[in-house]
């Protein structure tokens, strides 16, 4: 209970699904052998942290930011460029992470203090513009970032695919550096998630929710809203930076497409809203569902597309084309905004309440 900061997931169905997802993630290398499955699992882990830190802003504080992926990119580039420039050691990793965190903090402070004084809508636009400029900057400063091509780099030896922890196999799986990296990512994400859970259940987290519900009243009660909002922005930026660092470590590559593209920002928005705003557990469900859909829904859609094409229906084959999977998640997103603002978590909770 203490580990979960006194805020365990409520409702049987929610608990059952969460346990399933977490078990699947913990045992992924053994349950689902193969490179693709492990990639999906690692991406899910990274996304859980990214989405949870975004939920701190969107769901708990009621601020829309479009710069979250920028902080993700800062983390990814920080670690990536440090490992590229300083060589593949743990020291370089730590240096990169610290520099990235410092840059993220400075950017978050600047954006927050500059634009959170005014309406939240203003913050949304300013973050969008800044994130866009950052993206352009990263792809143009090619002497530093490798431009559009990005940078491939080596990771510390223990995490390299060639490394073997033990000779032979454990449950039929060779324990190599890739699997060690996966568990490294998983453990860091789990720890960071618990820290975020602690933050939202602290008195500070309560104030954030008060600000979300009614900023004027929160201010009248004596809380400095600009301070709280800016601090929330900074904490969430640090979470995103860490997620970016883990993502770079897993991919052993950093580039604009994997670290800074605006489509990642849209993905994160979809995950938060579909999973459930204002509940960190929603991040786990949203990220798992989204990454799973991204990786496996396309196959199903391809089959459906061929089926409708064989039946020579107009337009439908194009709509079910595997590349159009985001279309259907877009529909789910809009419906969730209207009818289920608390997402899957909220729906599961409501079922539980009815049953009682």
């Amino acid at each position: 209970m203490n580990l979960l900061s006194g805020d365990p997931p409520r409702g049987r169905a929610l608990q059952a699904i969460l346990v399933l997802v977490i078990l699947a993630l913990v045992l992924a290398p053994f349950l689902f052998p193969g490179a693709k499955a492990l990639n999906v699992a690692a991406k899910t882990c990274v996304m859980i942290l990214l989405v949870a830190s975004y939920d701190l802003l969107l769901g708990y504080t009621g601020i829309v930011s479009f710069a979250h992926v920028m902080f993700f990119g800062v983390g990814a580039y920080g670690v990536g460029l440090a490992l590229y420039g300083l060589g593949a050691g743990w020291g370089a990793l730590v240096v990169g992470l610290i520099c990235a965190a410092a840059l993220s903090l400075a950017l978050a402070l600047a954006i927050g203090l500059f634009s959170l004084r005014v309406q939240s809508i203003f913050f949304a636009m300013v973050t969008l513009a800044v994130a866009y400029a950052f993206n352009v900057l990263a792809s143009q400063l090619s002497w530093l970032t490798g431009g559009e091509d990005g940078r491939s780099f080596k990771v510390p030896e223990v995490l390299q695919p060639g490394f073997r922890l033990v000779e032979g196999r454990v449950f039929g799986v060779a324990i190599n550096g890739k699997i060690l990296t996966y568990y490294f990512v998983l453990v860091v994400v789990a720890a960071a998630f618990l820290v975020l859970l602690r933050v939202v259940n602290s008195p500070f987290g309560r104030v954030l929710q008060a600000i979300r519900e009614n900023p004027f009243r929160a201010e009248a009660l004596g809380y400095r809203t600009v301070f709280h909002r800016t601090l929330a922005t900074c904490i969430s930026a640090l979470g995103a930076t860490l997620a970016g660092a883990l993502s770079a470590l897993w991919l052993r590559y950093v580039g604009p497409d994997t670290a800074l593209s605006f489509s990642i920002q849209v993905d994160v928005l979809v995950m938060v809203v579909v999973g459930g705003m204002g509940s960190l557990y929603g991040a786990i469900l949203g990220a798992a569902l989204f990454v799973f859909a991204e990786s496996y829904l396309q196959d199903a859609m391809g089959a459906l597309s061929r089926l409708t094409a064989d039946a020579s229906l107009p337009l439908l084959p194009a709509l079910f084309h595997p590349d159009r999977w985001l279309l259907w998640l877009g529909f789910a997103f809009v419906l969730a905004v209207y009818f289920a603002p608390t997402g899957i978590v909220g729906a599961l909770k409501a079922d539980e309440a009815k049953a009682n």
Partner: protein
Amino acid sequence: MSALDAGAALPRRGPDILPALTPLAVALIAAPFIGSLSTFVTLTAAGLAMGMLIFTMASGLTLVFGMMDVLNFGHGAFIALGAYAATLVLLPLASWSASDSLGLNLAVFVLAIVVAALICGVFGWVFERLIVKPVYGQHLKQILATIGGSIIAEQLLYAVFGPAQIPLALPKTFEGSFVFGQAAIEKYRLLATCIGLIVFAGEMLVLNRTRIGLLIRAGVENREMVEALGYRVDRLFVAVFMAGSALGGLGGAMMALYRGQVHATIGGEFLVLCFIVIIIGGLGSVGGSFVASILVALIANYAGFLAPKLALVSNILAMVAVLLWRPRGLYPVSGR
């Protein structure tokens, strides 16, 4: 002294012209650094034309925000839709654009942008009814819903028109440039400037000189009062939304022609620019966005010539500088 006299005795504030002079100031400051007069003229003319193109797109966004308090993150989808709609006219009538006759060229161009505006207006109505109407007055949900709408719209565009770039040729008369001495001014940029000025004049006239504009402005001030007088404010606002979408489409079509190709990413790219422009101009102010568009385009052009690396972030720097001077933009709209 009666209340009426007191009102009459209030000093009339002259128009605030200082912000309107900023583009001129920027041009004057940049001129000595550029040095050559012909380069300066070329850059300035190009900047003005680009400013007009941006203004056409951004004014739709600021109009909708100023009138309806809706920040439409789906505006980019209309910019892209307008670009694709233009191909519906220009590709089948390619022989008209390829002919030497000015009349046919102009006809196909006007037809293309009018069709783009009409299609975007119609889809603006659909978008307003389906996406925006349920979330009036809730900013957070508006942002989310309109983003969701733009995801769907972009994917539908890909599904209907295919994911590849569509090349688009300018009508023949508008290719090439006029040359004055050493300075070259592209013909199409002149045309774009004219269209932008017409749009600006039209908006100012409708808003300030017609009964509909009066009702819209009154509806913004006090919606319930206007409704109590028997006017259907909601219909008026739908019309504003359609007009805003149509302007986005018009600008998108013209920008696609200028670039010579159409792709759905044009939407997201110019949405960011539109936001910067309407923040600089003051949210909801048409005049402000007009000045801001020119300012942003001029700065981008000069910076691109003088310090290409700086040009990448010149828009953001311009925004920060303006907001430090006037925190609510060049021409803040009261009550927003």
